[in-house]
């Protein structure tokens, strides 16, 4: 059986019927940012309990955490796309869920430490809010990774899930744990530091789609990867899980794998440029 996974270049969100954005939890970043820009100033400035230095530390932490989250979500999407067989995708999901669980445990422990420090007075209100803002950003990443993992898992055959030890009920539990991180006030803490957009994906992010037949496809904006592979050695991985974004179907008789990344040189006239004149070093500047 031949499987084909194609990762298309998309600079806009696709409009598939069952589309789960890996990064943005369904919110349009530009709209969120427009609102957040206004709220950030109001929230932070109005909150006299946060000193400028404390707020600055929170901004640094959240900014870095958000980019790291974006990287992780896109990396997950790429891994799914690069592994065409159901078993391989199930292994990717299993690994991702283990990582998400560890991340949630770390966030829970960090939250407890912060609560204790805040309560015993060793941490100021502003320091506490700044640290919790970072927790909020990382929580958003964990939640989205759990959601996208679940989306992929639901498109995979049970045999593949069983083989990788992926438990859909356990994913639901992870969702609940992630939602509880930071308590009910964590979003408010984050707003007081960076505005309303803490932890929200920074762009039109990778999307995992599952159609009515259980076919999984992934789209990562800004990336062109062709990954063709068969299910060799993986024959029982589920004929109902053929991964396709281009309508191809295979007979399973050939074994080929091809993956490439294209970084195209371009200039859009507004100062943005992409240089990709070497194999290992590329630079993009707005």
């Amino acid at each position: 059986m031949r499987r084909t996974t194609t990762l298309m270049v998309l600079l806009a969100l696709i409009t598939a019927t069952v589309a789960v954005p890996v990064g943005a939890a369904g919110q349009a970043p530009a709209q969120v940012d427009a609102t957040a820009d206004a709220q950030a100033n109001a929230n932070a400035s109005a909150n006299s309990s946060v000193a400028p230095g404390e707020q600055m530390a929170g901004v640094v932490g959240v900014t870095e955490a958000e980019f790291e989250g974006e990287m992780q979500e896109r990396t997950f999407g790429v891994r799914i796309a690069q592994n065409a067989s159901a078993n391989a995708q199930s292994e990717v999901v299993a690994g991702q869920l283990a990582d998400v669980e560890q991340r949630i445990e770390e966030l829970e422990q960090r939250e407890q430490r912060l609560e204790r420090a805040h309560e015993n007075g060793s941490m100021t209100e502003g320091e506490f809010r700044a640290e919790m803002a970072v927790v909020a950003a990382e929580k958003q990443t964990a939640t989205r990774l759990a959601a996208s993992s679940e989306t992929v898992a639901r498109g995979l055959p049970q045999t593949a899930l069983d083989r990788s030890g992926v438990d859909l009920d356990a994913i639901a539990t992870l969702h609940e744990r992630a939602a509880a991180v930071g308590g009910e006030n964590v979003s408010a803490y984050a707003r007081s530091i960076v505005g309303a957009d803490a932890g929200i994906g920074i762009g039109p992010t990778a999307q995992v789609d599952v159609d009515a037949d259980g076919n999984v496809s992934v789209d990562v904006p800004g990336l062109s990867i062709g990954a063709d592979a068969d299910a060799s050695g993986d024959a029982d991985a589920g004929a109902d899980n053929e991964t396709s974004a281009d309508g191809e179907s295979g007979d399973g008789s050939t074994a080929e794998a091809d993956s490439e990344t294209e970084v195209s040189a371009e200039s859009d006239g507004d100062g943005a440029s992409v240089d990709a004149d070497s194999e290992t070093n590329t630079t993009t500047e707005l």
Partner: protein
Amino acid sequence: MSSTHRAVALALAAALAIGAVAGPGVAKPTQNENDEPSLVVEVQEDGDAVVTLTATYDLTSEAERDAFASLQNDESARENATRRYAARLDSVAQNASERVEREMRVPADEASVSLEERGDVGVVRYSAAWKNLAAVEDDRLVVTEPFASNYGTDRPFVLVAPDGYELTGATPSVDAEGETTATWDAGTSLDGFEATMKPGDAGGADSLPGFGVGAAVASVAGAAALALRRRRSP
């Protein structure tokens, strides 16, 4: 010295040796084009500054490199990241303005985000112009907020004086100082921070004893390496 420390030291030595400062209104520092986590504040003679946050990410797998490449190519994501960075710093600036007798601000149109792949490390630099960050008192430049009010840095904090200026006083004590740079190590509390700069003698001799360029490179390299390990090995 390990290969990691040698690489870090070389990168920072190159960065510190450049000595140039971004011109007014240009949020693209030339001083900080190293590939180590840091927060660099490049002060200009008029009190404005360029604030650059550098973060690094592991690119050890093909999937991670592809993900980073996708962000390099994703103009919308980079624009959002740029806008957020400027908006958040502007919020801090407004907060800080209430503690100093001048209006600070961070214009959205003077910010930028760059992504660079350096082998197995992805380097992201957020830069923004910060108006009136330093107080101008005759020929002196004084930096306090937004660092004096309990800013704890998780990465080396580097203050860069305008060309021809020198650091004449700093609280807390700097961990390393070059001709126009002063560095505080990761983990330092900058509560009560104050740094004063004045036009110096030709030749730019160190104004605070005990720190030369060599010491600066060694100290910053060690601090940066620690921060790098923490970020890349969570």
